[in-house]
């Protein structure tokens, strides 16, 4: 039997895996900060959509991807401020605000996209971040293709995960975050400003989610389409839980999703498979959830104060 087609098939799937995992990983690592601080933001999907649109429109109009990324970051900060204001200052129900934010994200980006782009008759694609081939390493057969021919935003996750871990576990700020999500009153009695800490944590979360959204237009697809995030915000929420609220855990869980996403794309492209494409599209979501349920034997406890406004 000829092994070559199998190897190529595997190579193409694994090469896409990390890329597929990246937007989810950004959002999930961010959400870990937020949830560790006690704020559950189910509005990630909306935050990512707004980030994607902000990133796309600024990059498209200016022709500069970095400006687009900065615009996404700005939109993420703004989203964080809005979400924090309602959930932390006003103490509205986090689920309700999050759900509303998803609808707002969907609506606003949809309307703006139609008004400014869909019917403008302009060519809408932009030039995305190019893959950077790491010298020598990218020449290694198989591994080179899988690991060393990605764009900057994919590589950046290698920095993001250890950095997030470091901040959470090795800095006073991280300690404060973990405390206010677990026992906010205790944090309060030693002089930590609970609400301010939560604001920062939420803004970190929404900023990273917006970057994850922007990845989709700046480093993956080359244009915006309505609802481009397609549930990745929700998958990120699941990834946070399955990853046990730890950045490395989130990385593992999002890579798992990435594999199946890549697999279904590959299967769709093969064309001669007699499965309706909707089933294939659902595959990564279904399998991720099933596999992770099977894998999580030891349940990690959610932060105690998750979802509970302080005072």
């Amino acid at each position, binding site marked *: 039997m000829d092994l070559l087609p199998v190897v190529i098939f595997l190579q193409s799937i694994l090469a896409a895996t990390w890329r597929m995992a990246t937007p989810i990983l950004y959002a999930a690592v961010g959400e870990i900060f937020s949830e560790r601080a006690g704020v559950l933001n189910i509005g990630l999907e909306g935050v990512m959509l707004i980030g994607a649109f902000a990133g796309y429109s600024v990059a498209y109009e200016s022709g500069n991807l970095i400006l687009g990324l900065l615009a996404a970051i700005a939109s993420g900060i703004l989203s964080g401020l809005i979400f924090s204001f309602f959930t932390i200052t006003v103490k509205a129900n986090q689920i309700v605000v999050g759900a509303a934010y998803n609808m707002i994200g969907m609506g606003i980006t949809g309307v703006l996209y139609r008004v400014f782009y869909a019917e403008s008759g302009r060519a809408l694609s932009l030039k995305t971040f190019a893959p950077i081939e790491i010298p020598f390493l990218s020449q290694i057969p198989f591994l080179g293709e899988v690991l060393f021919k990605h764009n900057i935003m994919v590589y950046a996750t290698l920095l993001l995960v250890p950095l997030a871990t470091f901040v959470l576990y*090795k*800095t*006073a*700020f991280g*300690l*404060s975050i*973990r*405390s206010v999500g*677990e*026992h906010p*009153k*205790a*944090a*309060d*009695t*030693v*002089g*930590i400003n609970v609400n301010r800490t939560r604001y920062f944590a939420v803004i970190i979360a929404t900023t990273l989610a917006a970057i994850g959204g922007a990845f989709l237009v700046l480093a993956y697809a080359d244009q915006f389409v309505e609802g481009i995030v397609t549930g990745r915000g929700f998958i990120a929420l699941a990834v946070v839980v399955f990853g046990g609220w730890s950045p490395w855990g989130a990385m593992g869980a999002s890579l798992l999703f990435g594999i199946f996403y890549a697999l279904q794309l590959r299967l769709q492209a093969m064309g001669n498979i007699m499965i309706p494409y909707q089933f294939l599209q659902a595959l990564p979501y279904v399998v991720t959830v099933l596999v992770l349920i099977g894998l999580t034997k030891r349940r990690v*406890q959610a*932060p*105690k104060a998750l979802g509970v406004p302080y005072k």
Partner: protein
Amino acid sequence: MEDIIIRMVNIVKSFPGVQANRGVNLEVRRGEIHCLLGENGAGKTVLMSILYGLYKPDAGEIYYNGEKVEIRNPKDAINRRIGMVHQHFMLVPTITVAENIILGQYPSWKVLNDMPAVYEKIEKLSKDFDLDVDPSALVQDLSVGEQQRVEILKALYHGADLLILDEPTAVLTPQESEHLLGFLRQLADRGLTIVFITHKLEEVMQVSDRVTILRDGKAIATLNTKDTNPRELARLMVGRDVLMDLKKKEGQPGNVVFSVRNLRVTDERGLLAVKGVSLEVREREIVGIAGVSGNGQSELALALAGLIDCEFDEITLNSTPITKKDFARLNHMGMAHIPEDRQKMGLILPFSVSENFIAETYRDEPFSKRGFLQFRTINDYSKSLVEKFSIRCGDVEEEIANLSGGNQQKVVVARELDRRPKFLLVNQPTRGIDIGATEFVRQQILAERDAGAAILLISTDLEEIFALSDRILVMFEGKIMGEVPPDYSLIEQVGLMMAGKSAVHA
């Protein structure tokens, strides 16, 4: 002139609907142990929370070391070397002891690279004060007593000159309490000033140099402990004479109402917590179970109430054998249960007083007809219970969480007793409630006995066991060590049995 470390002048603090402090004056001398004595709701904790910067007073002045100060937040207090051990520990369970101790002490951007030094300092303090605290342990793995030592160490680590403790013995076993009081004396001898909030008279007498009594948000008096006595303190605290000794009639036990043979219960860790307990309780009889907490009493109570799984040879209630299937409807078979933890098991905290009253009977007539709640009936019924048990609450629609501990407990007691149970299981009926409510609850239990009920009373408070019981069983490591009559001269023997010595029958 004495050296005054703290002077609080005319402190006023109101919360919506409550005046917690109505012009309180307090002076604490350097190096003394100063008790703040008062019933629940007298304003002790609020006063100390103001001193610790958790609340801002509406009016009044604080002088610290002779200097007028404004303490805006806990950080301010810590910086001024004031430490506080709260009644509900302020420790984050998922992080280590060391992390809890440094929590909030550094600016946010600080990288925690000096943990070895922190560990060393904690270990040194721990050794100095004989506190036996491991800096690398996760707080959630520590016992309640250990957590309290961490709290004290936290204050010492921050260099506290003044240490406030809010009802520190409420969560401790008698031995741990004893040890804590001795330890506080040592701290005071080293020059620390200690403010000790309590409503237990014996503790005041045992540990303090001076005592300030608070009642209804006012400081009633400050006395030298050696010039006063428990009776005077009780009178000042409650505002009237308190019956320190209950009048108990001779019991006249009748037929056996409840009996259990060879009960075995496994606890959550999979260990045998109750190792074959047999006992019986008769009509018009209170059987007390004494023991240090954690010797299987909680599991015994939960099993008998049908709340956790257990094995047994036989249980009978009113001569009817009980099977596990009956457990769900024990309260329809004439049994009532006053659980150990009123907040977790006895009450539904976000519900109103009247909803809690009918928590077990809401489906039955007359409270419910054809699936509809009969609000007028429920309301009238609730009002009658509130009156009968003199429960202090705004009205019966008030959320039960707003009531003081004593009044919450009265709601549980009222609900359970009003069903006129044949068999009553009572676990720690007066833990953490004030002296007035304690007196009331105990009288109710005795009255229930005289009305014919068979009562099994579990308590770690020996005083309570001796005051109420007709027979005393002592429990140790899941077994009944023996039976003694409630004769105060035998209290020492009971103490030995609680520590594992078998009964020596005279």
